[in-house]
C-alpha cells in the first residue's frame, strides 16, 4: 500500500472492513488483501499506534507515537494504558492508578473519569481517540480511504462491562463494530491459516496489561474454542513494576519520598524499567539508570536476568495457573495439546518461553510476530463477516459464568463459563411475598458462590406483575449472549401474559444517552480544537508580519505620511494584544486590519525594490 491512490483523496471512499487490535500499549490495524491478512501501514512507518493520548496546552489532543514522546517530558498531561480502566469502577483500579502519573475519579454510573487540563474524559473517550488515530493511519496508508467498519479485539477474559465499554469507544470514534472478537481466538485464526494445521492448540497471550489463555480445536476450517481463562490485570506493565519497585525501595534511603512520588519521575522510572526489561530478553544483564530528582547524580543498577526472573516469577506462575484451569475446563491432558502459540510482546521474555515450554512439554510456536498476530486474525474475521469466505468458522465461548442473585445473596448460575456463543438460557422465578408486583434482579458475572464476590453487571426491576399469592407468578428470565460475547437479559411474567418492562442500570458503563452526549461534546471539542489550531497559526503569522513591518518601517518611514504611520502603529499594537488573548476571531480581525494598514507601506517597499532593480543594483537577487 502506498500513496498511489492519493488522487482519490477528495472522494470519501470506504475501506473494506478491517481488523483492529486495540491494545493496552499499542493498537494496530490489519486488512484482508490479495488473499491474506496484512498490517495496514503508511510508507516508512510500521503502522503501530501507541495507545497514548497527549493533551497540549492548546490545540487538539495528540495521539500515538508523538503522544508517547511528549508524555516522556510532560507525563501529567498524557493518558495511557487506559484499557486497564475500561468498564471498571474506581475500586477495581486502585492498584493500576498507583503505577500511572494520572489521576482518576468516579463519574456517573461509577464510570471512571480522568481529568486532564480541566477536561474530563472516560476511558471510552480516550480509547475512541486512539481508534480515530487508527483510522487516520489507515487512511494515510490507503490513499485516503475511510475506516468505517471493523472487527475489534478484546482480551478473552474481558467481562460484559469491559466489552460494552470497547463497543462504546468504537461508537464514539464513528466506527461500526462488525464483531468483538477475543484476542487469543483472533491469533489462532492467523496461526491456523498461516500454518494450515489441525489439532488442539493453546494460545498463550501475555500483552501489555492483560493475560489470556485459550484452548482451541482446529478442524476443517472450524476454529472451536474449548475453554478460556485469564487475568485482565496481568501484563507487561506488571513486569515493569517489579523493577520500578526495586528502584523506589533503593532510592527511598537517600531521596525525599515526596520527590519519588512525582509523576514526571515515576514516568521516567517506568520507561527506564521497560527498557531494562526489553534488554534483559536479549542480554543476560542490563543496567537500569535514572536521573535522581533534585540532584546531578544518576541512580544506576545492574539487573541480571536471574534476578529479574525471580522478581517476576510470581507473575509467570499466575499465568501458568490460568493455563492449568483452561486445560482442566477443556477436559484435555497436556499431552493432547498439539501446538502452543505465543502472542503479546512479553512472550519474548526467555523466562516466559521456558515456563510455557515446561508446562506444555513442547517448544512453543514463535514464527508469527507476537505483536501483529491478533490484528491479522481480526482482519481474517472481518473478511469472513463481509461475506468474503465460508471456509473459516470461529466458534468462541463466554469466559465467565452468568447468573442472578437469589434470596440470601447466593448466585443462581444461568449460563456456565466456556459455553459456546451465541447461547441462551431461560430460568424461572416467582414472587415470595403475597401481592408482590415487582421483582428486582441483580445480574452477576463470575465463578464465586456469593453474589457479593461476583461482578454485578447491572440491576433491573420487573414491574407490573398483577397482585397474586406468593409463588404463583411465573417469571421467565432469558439470558442471551450474542456472538460478540455481549449479554442481553429479558424478563416476562407468563401466567397472565401481561408484558412487563425492564430497566437496566449499567454498572461502570455508559448509557445510550451518555454516548449521544459525548458525541455531541466531541463535536463541540472538535470545533474548539479547530479554533485553537487556527489561533496558533494566526499568532505565528502575525509574528512574521510584525517583524517584516518593523524592518519595513525602519527602511521607508520617511516616505510615508504621518497618518499612515499612526495607522500602522495602531494596528501593530492591536495585533500584539490579540496575540495574548488567543481568541481566533479577534486574531483574525486584527490580522486583517493589520494587513490593510500596512498596504501603503508595502506599496512603497515594492516601489523602492523595483527602482533598485531597474538601476541594476540588485540584479543578482532577481
Amino acid at each position, binding site marked *: 500500500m502506498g500513496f498511489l491512490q492519493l488522487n482519490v483523496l477528495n472522494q470519501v471512499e470506504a475501506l473494506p472492513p478491517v481488523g483492529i487490535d486495540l491494545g493496552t500499549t499499542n493498537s494496530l490495524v490489519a486488512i484482508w488483501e490479495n488473499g491474506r491478512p496484512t498490517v495496514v501501514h503508511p510508507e516508512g512507518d510500521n503502522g503501530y499506534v501507541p495507545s497514548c493520548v497527549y493533551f497540549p496546552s492548546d490545540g487538539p489532543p495528540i495521539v500515538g507515537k508523538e503522544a508517547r514522546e511528549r508524555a516522556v517530558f510532560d507525563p501529567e498531561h498524557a493518558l495511557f494504558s487506559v484499557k486497564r480502566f475500561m468498564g471498571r469502577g474506581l475500586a477495581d483500579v486502585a492498584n493500576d492508578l498507583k503505577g500511572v502519573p494520572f489521576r482518576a475519579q468516579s463519574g456517573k454510573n461509577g464510570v471512571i473519569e480522568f481529568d486532564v487540563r480541566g477536561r474530563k474524559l472516560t476511558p471510552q473517550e480516550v480509547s475512541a481517540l486512539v481508534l480515530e488515530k487508527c483510522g487516520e493511519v489507515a487512511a494515510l496508508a490507503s490513499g485516503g480511504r475511510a475506516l468505517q467498519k471493523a472487527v475489534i479485539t478484546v482480551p478473552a477474559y474481558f467481562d460484559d462491562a469491559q466489552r460494552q465499554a470497547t463497543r462504546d469507544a468504537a461508537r464514539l470514534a464513528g466506527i461500526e463494530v*462488525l*464483531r468483538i472478537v477475543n484476542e487469543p481466538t483472533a491469533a489462532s485464526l492467523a496461526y491456523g491459516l498461516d500454518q494450515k494445521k489441525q489439532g488442539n492448540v493453546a494460545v498463550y497471550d501475555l500483552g501489555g496489561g492483560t493475560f489470556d489463555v485459550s484452548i482451541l480445536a482446529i*478442524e*476443517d476450517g*472450524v476454529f*472451536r474454542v474449548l475453554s478460556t481463562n485469564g487475568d485482565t490485570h496481568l501484563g507487561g506493565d506488571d513486569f515493569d513494576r517489579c523493577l520500578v519497585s526495586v528502584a523506589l525501595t533503593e532510592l527511598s534511603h537517600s531521596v525525599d519520598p515526596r520527590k519519588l512520588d512525582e509523576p514526571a519521575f515515576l514516568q521516567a522510572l517506568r520507561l527506564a524499567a521497560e527498557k531494562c526489561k526489553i534488554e534483559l530478553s536479549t542480554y543476560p544483564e542490563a543496567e537500569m539508570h535514572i536521573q535522581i530528582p533534585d540532584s546531578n547524580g544518576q541512580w544506576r543498577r545492574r539487573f541480571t536476568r536471574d534476578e529479574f526472573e525471580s522478581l517476576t516469577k510470581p507473575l509467570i506462575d499466575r499465568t501458568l*495457573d490460568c493455563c*492449568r*484451569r483452561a486445560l*482442566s475446563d477443556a477436559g484435555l491432558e497436556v499431552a493432547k495439546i498439539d501446538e502452543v502459540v505465543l502472542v503479546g510482546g512479553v512472550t519474548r521474555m526467555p523466562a516466559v518461553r521456558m515456563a510455557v515450554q515446561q508446562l506444555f512439554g513442547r517448544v512453543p510456536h514463535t514464527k508469527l510476530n507476537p505483536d501483529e498476530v491478533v490484528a491479522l486474525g481480526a482482519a481474517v*474475521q472481518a473478511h*469472513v*463477516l*463481509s*461475506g468474503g469466505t*465460508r471456509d473459516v*468458522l*470461529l*466458534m468462541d465461548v463466554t469466559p465467565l*459464568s452468568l447468573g442472578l442473585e437469589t434470596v440470601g445473596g447466593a*448466585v443462581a*448460575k444461568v449460563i456456565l*463459563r466456556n*459455553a*459456546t*456463543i*451465541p*447461547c*441462551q*438460557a431461560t430460568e424461572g422465578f416467582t414472587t415470595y411475598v403475597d401481592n408482590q408486583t415487582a421483582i428486582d434482579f441483580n445480574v452477576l458475572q463470575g*465463578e*464465586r*458462590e456469593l453474589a457479593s*464476590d461476583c461482578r454485578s453487571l447491572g440491576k433491573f426491576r420487573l414491574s407490573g406483575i398483577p397482585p397474586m399469592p406468593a409463588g404463583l407468578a411465573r417469571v421467565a428470565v432469558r439470558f*442471551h*449472549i*450474542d*456472538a460478540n460475547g455481549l449479554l442481553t437479559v429479558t424478563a416476562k411474567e407468563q401466567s397472565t401474559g401481561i408484558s412487563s418492562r425492564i430497566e437496566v442500570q449499567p454498572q461502570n458503563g455508559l448509557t445510550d444517552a451518555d454516548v449521544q452526549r459525548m458525541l455531541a461534546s466531541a463535536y463541540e471539542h472538535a470545533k474548539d480544537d479547530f479554533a485553537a489550531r487556527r489561533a496558533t497559526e494566526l499568532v505565528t503569522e502575525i509574528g512574521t508580519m510584525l517583524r517584516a513591518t518593523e524592518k519595513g518601517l525602519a527602511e521607508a518611514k520617511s516616505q510615508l505620511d504621518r497618518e499612515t504611520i499612526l495607522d500602522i502603529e495602531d494596528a501593530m499594537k492591536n495585533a500584539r494584544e490579540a496575540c495574548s488573548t488567543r481568541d481566533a476571531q479577534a486574531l483574525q480581525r486584527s490580522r486583517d486590519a493589520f494587513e490593510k494598514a500596512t498596504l501603503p507601506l508595502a506599496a512603497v517597499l515594492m516601489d523602492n525594490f523595483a527602482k533598485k532593480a531597474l538601476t541594476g543594483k540588485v540584479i543578482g537577487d532577481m
Partner: protein
Amino acid sequence: MTACPNCRQETTTPLVCTACGVLLSPDGALSPFEVFGVEPAFELDHAALKRRLLELSRRMHPDYFATAGAEQRERAEGNTAELNRAHEVLANDQSRADWLVRSLGGPDELQERAMPQAFLLEVLEWNETLDAARSAPAGSRPLEQLAALRAELAARRTQALELLRGSLVPLPPRGSPRLVEARRELNALRYVERTLAEIRALELGQPAARA
C-alpha cells in the same frame, strides 16, 4: 419431520433447512434431541454429535449472515444459540440424563433429594479429608491426600455413570421407578462433580465454581 417452507424438502432440524440453507423459525421450546435430529436416548455417538454441531454451525452461524438484513441476522443468532444450548445439554452425560428424566415425568432434584444409601457413607469419609484441606492455609494444603481423593472420586464417577446407564438404557417408560433411581444417581454425580471442582480449586487456588 416437517417440510421446508422454501424448498419443500423434509427437514432434519427445526433450525435450518440442510437442503436449501434457508433459516427456519422454530416455535416453542425445542427438545435438544429434536434440534440435532436424533431419537431421545441416553446412549449417544459423541463423534457424530460433534460432526453434526459443526455441520449445522456451518449453515447458520451469524458470521455468515453479517451482511444480511436485520431479521435474518437475528434468526441466525437465535437459532445458533438454540443449537449451542442443545449441544451443551447433549454433550454432557449428566445434563443429558437430567433432561431425559424430566421429559419422562421423573422427579427433579427438589422432588427427590436422596442419594443412594452406600454413597452416603462414602461422602462422610470424603468430607473429613476435604475439611482438613479447606482449613489448611493456601501454601500448605495436603496435596497428596487431595490427589488421592480426586482419583477415588473419579472412579466413583465412572461407577455412577454406569449405574445411571443401567437405569436409562433402554429408555424407561413414563413414570417408571427407574427414573427415581436415575435421579438418585444424578444427585450422587452432582455431589461428585462439585467436590471434584472444589478439589481442583483447592489445588489451583481458584474460587470454587458450582458445577
